[in-house]
């Protein structure tokens, strides 16, 4: 009887081990200028791409202390994690996160790797790994990606991917956004897939829904601004004007 219990425990242990997926975390370091094209608001970021079987989760986090609130002429509402994307290669589905004015998360679906990459005959080493170059255009911006053919995974940082190797470095044409791989570790479990699979099972809106929501959000604020200007200032001739600048083209 005692032996049977031990055998059962061993079976359960090895079964659990087999089903426990190992994850690999690719760490990147880079920068993002959130005033792209209008000024310099470059900040340093660390990013991680967690690859778990055929699924991955990417996110970027600003280094240093990040304070929200009104600072001078800037109302800082940046979330702690940005450019968060979940990819399911098996079902070719992608989810991305958007943080609204109240820093509530909204998830939207997007097309997996729609960019048409042009492979360039250039090579360089990144962290001792030979990489090849590719250029492409995505959501209104040109990107350069250096991918490692020796890493058999078509994934990459943020929404980039679809190349014959893991993207280890990527940047836009103006170098406003730039990430470079620094290291990789293996962990027992990277992230909770159940959370994201549940999101996928819901009828999420696509990128057009996201674009419509952003425009609606800002147009409500513009209306509030105009109403306050008219109500609180007799004879005022100035109504603040609002212009949206989005990293991904939403027009």
């Amino acid at each position, binding site marked *: 009887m005692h032996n049977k219990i031990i055998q059962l425990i061993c079976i359960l242990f090895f079964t659990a081990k087999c089903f426990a997926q190992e994850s690999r975390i690719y760490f990147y370091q880079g920068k993002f200028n959130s005033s792209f094209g*209008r000024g310099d608001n470059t900040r340093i970021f660390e990013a991680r791409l967690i690859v778990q079987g055929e699924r991955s989760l990417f996110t970027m986090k600003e280094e240093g202390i990040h304070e929200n*609130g*009104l600072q001078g002429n800037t*109302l800082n509402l940046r*979330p702690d994690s940005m*450019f968060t994307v979940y990819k399911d290669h098996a079902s070719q589905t992608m989810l991305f996160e958007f943080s*609204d004015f109240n820093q509530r998360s909204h998830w939207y679906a997007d097309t997996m790797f729609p960019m048409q990459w042009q492979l360039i005959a250039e090579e360089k080493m990144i962290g001792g790994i030979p990489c090849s170059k590719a250029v492409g255009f995505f959501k209104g911006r040109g990107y350069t990606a250096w991918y490692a053919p020796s890493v058999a995974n078509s994934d990459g940082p943020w929404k980039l991917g679809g190349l014959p190797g893991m993207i280890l470095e990527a940047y836009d044409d103006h170098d406003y956004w730039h990430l470079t791989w620094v290291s990789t570790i293996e962990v027992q479990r990277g992230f909770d897939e159940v959370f994201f699979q549940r999101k996928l099972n819901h009828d999420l809106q696509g990128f057009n829904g996201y674009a419509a929501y952003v425009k609606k959000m800002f147009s409500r604020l513009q209306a509030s601004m105009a109403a306050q200007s008219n109500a609180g200032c007799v004879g005022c*001739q100035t109504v*603040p004007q609002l212009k949206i600048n989005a*990293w991904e083209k939403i027009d």
Partner: protein
Amino acid sequence: MLAAFLTQASENVEKETGKQKEHQIENVTVAMGKSNVSLPVLDCSVTLKGKVDLGPIEAEISCTVTDPSCEKAQVTAAACLKSALRLYAGVIM
């Protein structure tokens, strides 16, 4: 006397020009008897900008005020921008 008047008007315009950062010049025709004299009228236009930073999305807020006085235009534009940012902060946070 007309010459003296025009000289004085011209000097006033130069003083205003020295104080202004941006200006528009409009010509105003003043009827004086049978003669018409054009005098430049200068307005000062000030635009101040702020932003709401959401990370991948940034909203730029701008307030433009036009006034003959640059100082007044600047003060009004600053008040407009401050009010708009505080409105967002109040609504949002």
